[in-house]
């Protein structure tokens, strides 16, 4: 181990530079604060490192964590021994999941913030209201849409709550399979619209969105089309002169001081040197799995069970969503090709099945959207023959004649579903890995069944001649969405963070990713997370670091 000089103390240290760390870096450095961002992964450059190589990006995990170096383990219940499993292995690099994502960014709905008020106690679930409402977030949803770049058509989603501005960019034209979806929905009386997309089709903020390759979901984008914090917010933060980025550095502990505040973080750089970075404020934005892991690893005399964990709730109530879908095949002899592999992953979608309808046998609901069936090696085709003439025939027949309609399953929080430290499995540095304990709730299974069957109905209306519905068995972590492991709330006995995602126990520790979400919402969470990270960053610069008070009261 080499010795290096201790760096100067700063106002804010941010751990993890993905969607939310990138947002906090921009907002806080633009507010004039001195900020250091520490990222365990590399800083890849989109114009230099990214291209349409299916094998490299989808199969050999070039951008993703290596599951041998940093494994995760999963079990379904308390008495099982967790097995290594690449659960929700979101890319860990500068920009995080915004490097690879498809970029669905629908707005959450008013009901998402008040599930407990709406439904009371649901057996086996730990429903809780959020400590704020849609209206508190709306200005920040708009800021993200305009500053980060979201394409969509205002007014097209008739169920959307109030918005203060339309979108800054038009969506791409519909794909052929998207057109099938629109036509079927119109036949069935369903309100279909372009799913808001974290990408632009114009020169917003000087971007050059030339990528029309269809290498989209799971690939890095060499152009300026995809909204990625590594190409937007992080360069904007650097341009202030107030932000310093340290990539390939692994934070292993948030350090507590004697005064009840965190003093900063301890990290290991790429040369193996251990370095301490002091800061007035520590922000965790590693994603709800790794933020919880770091909190649990940060043990001190004050917090023997992990920092800010007097409630014992750090890691608990984890929710992950699951991507479920149905595939439809058309007949090459009769039908026109739908080119399921083409497009920037999403096209038309609907929110008509989002709000609770108890006649369906469950509470909540899901966003539904048509999406790409992907490229030849990894075509999304459950039951694709493994070998022989059947494999060749089905590839030849269906590659351009398949489409998919999927949904984001809104799983209910359960206290036993959680992230903790695996007692046996260690990462390459000898640190305990995150262990996931998760069992689906009956509501999750019922929701998945009804919604997937609805997808089949839309596919059949669209003219599909064979369908493959994919139902929920158990969570596989296939969405990379992570929430709930440090839930927000007003009562320090029942939550880890307050309404500003500030730890109840440690006033200068903030967790600005999905960890704070008391419930998962039924939409892709990144827009909500980033808007919340911006909102809480404003609190840090305008109130907390100025010594000013600001509290919300329990919303009605």
């Amino acid at each position, binding site marked *: 181990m080499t010795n290096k000089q201790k760096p100067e103390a700063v106002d804010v240290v941010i751990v993890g530079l993905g969607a939310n760390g990138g947002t906090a870096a921009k907002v806080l450095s633009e507010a004039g604060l001195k900020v250091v961002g520490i990222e365990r992964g590399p800083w890849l450059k989109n114009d230099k490192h990214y291209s349409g190589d*299916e094998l490299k990006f989808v199969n050999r995990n070039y951008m993703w964590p290596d599951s041998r170096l940093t494994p995760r383990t999963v079990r379904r219940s308390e008495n099982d021994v967790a097995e290594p499993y690449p659960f929700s292995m979101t890319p860990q690099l500068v920009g995080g999941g915004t490097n690879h994502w498809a970029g669905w960014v629908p707005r959450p709905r008013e009901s998402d913030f008040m599930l407990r008020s709406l439904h009371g106690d649901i057996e086996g679930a730990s429903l809780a209201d959020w400590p704020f409402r849609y209206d508190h977030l709306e200005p920040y949803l708009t800021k993200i849409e305009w500053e980060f770049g979201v394409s969509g058509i205002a007014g097209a989603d008739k169920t959307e709550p109030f918005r203060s501005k339309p979108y800054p960019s038009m969506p791409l034209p519909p794909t052929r399979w998207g057109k099938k979806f629109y036509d079927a929905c119109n036949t069935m009386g369903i309100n279909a619209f372009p799913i808001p997309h974290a990408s632009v089709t114009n020169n917003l903020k000087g971007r050059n969105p*030339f990528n029309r390759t269809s290498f989209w979901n799971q690939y890095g984008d060499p152009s300026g089309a995809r909204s990625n914090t590594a190409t937007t917010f992080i360069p904007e933060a650097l341009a202030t002169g107030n932000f310093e980025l340290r*990539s390939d550095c692994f934070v292993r502990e948030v350090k507590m001081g004697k005064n009840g505040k965190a003093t900063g973080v301890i990290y290991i750089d790429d040369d193996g040197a251990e370095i301490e970075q002091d800061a007035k404020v520590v922000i965790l934005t590693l994603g709800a799995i790794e933020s919880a892991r770091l909190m649990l690893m940060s043990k001190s005399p004050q917090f023997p069970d992990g920092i800010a964990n007097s409630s014992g709730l750090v890691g608990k109530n984890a929710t992950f969503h699951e991507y479920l879908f149905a595939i439809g095949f058309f007949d090459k002899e009769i039908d026109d090709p739908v080119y399921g592999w083409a497009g920037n992953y999403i096209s038309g979608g609907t929110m008509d099945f989002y709000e609770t309808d108890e006649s369906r046998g469950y509470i909540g609901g899901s966003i539904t959207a048509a999406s790409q069936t992907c490229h030849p090696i990894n075509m999304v085709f459950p039951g694709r023959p493994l070998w022989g003439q059947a494999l060749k025939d089905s590839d030849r027949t269906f590659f351009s004649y398949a489409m998919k309609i999927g949904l984001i399953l809104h799983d209910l929080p359960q206290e036993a579903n959680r992230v903790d430290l695996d007692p046996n499995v260690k990462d390459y540095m000898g640190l305990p890995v995150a262990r996931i304990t998760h069992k689906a709730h009956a509501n999750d299974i019922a929701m998945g069944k009804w919604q997937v069957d609805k997808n089949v109905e839309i596919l059949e209306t669209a003219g599909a001649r064979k369908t493959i519905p994919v139902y929920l068995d158990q969570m596989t972590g296939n969405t990379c969405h992570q929430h709930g492991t440090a839930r927000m709330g007003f009562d320090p006995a029942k939550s880890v963070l307050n309404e500003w995602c500030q730890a109840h126990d440690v006033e200068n520790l903030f967790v600005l990713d999905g960890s704070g979400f008391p419930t998962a919402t039924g939409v892709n969470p990144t827009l909500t997370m980033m808007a919340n990270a911006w909102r809480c960053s404003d609190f840090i610069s305008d109130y907390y670091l100025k010594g000013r008070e600001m509290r919300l009261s329990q919303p009605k």
Partner: protein
Amino acid sequence: MSSKADWKTILEPVDPDSNEPLFFSRDEWNTVEALAARIIPTDHDPGAKEARVVVFIDRYLSGINYVFASADGSGFLEMDGKHAYSWRARISELQQVYRQGIVDVDAASRETYGKNFADLDADSQDAIMIKISGKPKPASVNLGTTEPSTTFFQFSSDDGLPFWPALCLHVKQGFYADPVYGGNKDRMAWKMIEFDGPKSLKDTMDGTYSTADKFVDDYSWGDLIPVLQAQKEYPVPAKSDIIYK
């Protein structure tokens, strides 16, 4: 240790016509080539044999030089540090899985037919593959049915796979991957499924390769989304200001 961001480009795209193994023995090469030819057989379209899948697999198993092509496809990335360490371990395990798998296939072939796998006729080869896989030969996929499934983790990675699923996955990868890796010679697999993929990886980095023609050209948002016509707050968009049509 250098960051992943700084890995150098080494070597050149793999020559699909090479007959010089870097990893397999000559006999192993022949067995794998014969297995691949039954996994994606040749008919009126080329199969794994013509696409040179055996070259793809041989290069992959030869070490860690052929794991990641450089972004522009001019060569391969030279891994470093912990990633090199991890990939060496992964490839080393796969080498052993393949060596043993090939021994098992040839032993089963000799036991049943008295000849090595590569010397059998196609039906006998299929019979050995059914035995090795422990499952019937996959049946063709037909229209007119609904076939439910449950969530699964699609095997996109080969980490820890036994011989048979690893081989089937690698044959599919070699057949359909960008030709820089040694298979999919002359993009023949893409032609078979009528996928007009990029001529080079570089073409996907600068806008040269475009699939814009696979989108719908003749559309109006007002027709696709009837509620737009009723709402008053925002203008109904006409054909958009999309650049790069």
